[in-house]
């Protein structure tokens, strides 16, 4: 027994983190779906789910139960083994990618030397789940969806990778922990040093997660449901889980590399220390809203649930505030880095996902050739120029002794000029093609 404990000691914390991630992610994915539906409803002037629980708060759980109880259909002509394995590949890979991410300074499974590359690389394997699932269903819609997906992912992986290279040049390391530390040392998040890189990564990450306006692989109006057409019940739920986990992963990469990870805004400045109270205040405001809505719920149970949610939020506020109120030096005060780091990280991830959803409800879907055009003729060249620009800025700063602002400002302007030229040239070519098409 003793030896077992000795053996387990170094792997205990990573193990707990892993279990927490695997246990909590499905729930988080469910609530992201709820948030998305609520947001979509809001933008379309509807209410969204309101029946299950107050304001639809229990809807994800009801959905999960429904999906688990549904009949599991495997098509007669399908390649059974691959059909069975494909969704598992998607989910496993998506969750595995979380292993190297640092959610707050305390919560990390492994601080790898290859950190961010690991997340990218393992995430890239998720494509097999989609492609094999689409192929094994033995249906035309599925195969078309899978082919589109493969082409799209390969194309945008290039742009995303090059955008990340830009950020890594600034950081000088691949380890997620050290990347955030470097941003702390610089005193500025990399989004301000490399805004074009962030933009490229944001666009490419939307395409990589197959979301609107790049949701061609599962375009409902063209392909039924793309590669998921033949899937039902639990397997379909697995695909969905993988998709939302992937969203969280790409958002976490962006947060780590460009948005300062677990750092508070203005982390280095003493004058902004009052921002430390923001997390608890935010929780209290939400709790207050919950209590305000309690008497308006029609059923007793719903009132109870909403009150419970309010109490939970107050509890969270208390936990977040405790390290600030307790005198320094005690155990509770030491917890501040871990708790607040996790809060800021998750808040940034949430904001990134929120912008994702915005875009989804704002833009119409791209045509396939437009998608390829944008990927290969705009984003990839621009990302290469962006890497060169950041390299130039680093040379100006480190070897010629320019300040940060002039060096990065100059190269950003140059990169933007190139972007403008690329967009203009693409537009011109498109017009010419349209004219030729009319004549023919």
């Amino acid at each position, binding site marked *: 027994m003793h030896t077992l404990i000795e053996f387990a000691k170094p792997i205990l914390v990573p193990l707990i983190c892993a279990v927490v991630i695997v246990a909590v992610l499905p729930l988080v994915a469910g609530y992201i779906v709820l948030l998305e539906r609520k947001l979509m409803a809001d933008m379309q002037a509807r209410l969204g789910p309101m029946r299950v629980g107050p304001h639809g708060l229990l809807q994800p759980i009801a959905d999960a139960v429904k999906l688990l109880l549904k009949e599991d259909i495997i098509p007669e002509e399908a*390649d059974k*083994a*691959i059909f069975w394995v494909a969704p598992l590949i998607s989910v496993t890979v998506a969750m595995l990618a979380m292993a190297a991410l640092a959610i707050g300074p305390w919560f990390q499974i492994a601080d*790898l*030397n*290859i950190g961010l*590359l*690991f997340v*990218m*690389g*393992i995430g*890239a*394997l998720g*494509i*097999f789940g989609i*492609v*094999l699932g689409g*192929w*094994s269903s033995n249906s035309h819609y599925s*195969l078309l969806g*899978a*082919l589109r997906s*493969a*082409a799209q*992912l*390969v194309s945008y*992986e290039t742009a995303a990778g090059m955008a990340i290279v830009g950020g890594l040049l600034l950081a000088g390391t*691949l380890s997620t922990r050290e990347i955030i530390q470097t941003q702390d040392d610089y005193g500025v998040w990399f989004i301000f040093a490399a805004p074009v890189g962030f933009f490229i990564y944001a666009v490419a990450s939307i395409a990589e997660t197959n979301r609107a306006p790049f949701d061609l692989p599962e375009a409902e109006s063209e392909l039924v449901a793309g590669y998921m057409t033949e899937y039902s019940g639990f397997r379909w739920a697995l695909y969905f889980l993988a998709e939302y986990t992937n969203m969280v992963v790409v958002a976490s990469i962006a947060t780590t590399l460009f948005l300062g990870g677990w750092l508070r805004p203005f982390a280095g400045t003493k004058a902004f220390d009052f921002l430390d109270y923001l997390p608890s205040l935010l929780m209290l405001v939400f709790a207050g809203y919950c209590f305000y809505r309690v008497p308006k719920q029609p059923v007793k149970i719903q009132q109870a649930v909403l009150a419970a949610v309010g109490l939970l939020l107050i509890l969270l506020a208390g936990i977040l505030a405790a390290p600030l109120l307790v005198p320094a030096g005690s155990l509770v005060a030491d917890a501040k880095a871990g708790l607040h780091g996790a809060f800021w990280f998750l808040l940034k991830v949430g904001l990134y996902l929120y912008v994702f959803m915005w875009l989804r409800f704002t833009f119409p879907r791209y045509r396939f050739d437009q998608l390829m055009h944008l990927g290969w003729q705009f984003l990839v060249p621009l990302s290469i120029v962006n890497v060169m620009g950041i390299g130039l800025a680093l040379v100006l700063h480190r070897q010629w002794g320019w300040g940060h602002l002039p060096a990065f400002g100059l190269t950003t302007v140059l990169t933007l000029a190139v972007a403008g030229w690329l967009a203009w040239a693409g537009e011109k070519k498109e017009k010419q093609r349209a004219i030729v098409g009319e004549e023919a």
Partner: protein
Amino acid sequence: MLDQIVFYFFAVLAVISAVMVVTRRNVVQSAIFLITALLATAGIFLQLHAEFLFIVQVILYAGGIMVLFVFVIMLVSLDVSLNQVQFNRQWWLGLLLALVLGAQLTIAVAVGRAGLPLGEPAPAKMLEPSTQLVGRVLFSEYVLPFEIASILLLVAMIGAVVMAKKKI
């Protein structure tokens, strides 16, 4: 102990999937087993303290080249090919020669093992941090081969585009 378990697990996995790649009738299943074999090799790289190579293997081989393979298989896949004879007419001769080659290599390693300095490996510390070391060597001593490799890739890219074009 853990080292041994990891190595032999991945070694057995790699060999089994390699056999499957060669023997499966369905090309897609072959491709899946090839992916497994490549990932098992990546695991062995990790066990050998080659972290950077591990991720290169995963990104380039498993995530890049194999996606290309699967993509092409889906483009050209014919149901007819499942019912055809999978091995060529001289398969027995080829198998024999390949096995002779394998036996030769085995004998070479088994006999030559005594002569080679295959003693204690160097301390693992010398290979860390993997990324930085590989980067430094790649961009100092091997910068010319690196550039040549990039030209090779360019040539291959142009070649592939020309090949796949409908009308040249």
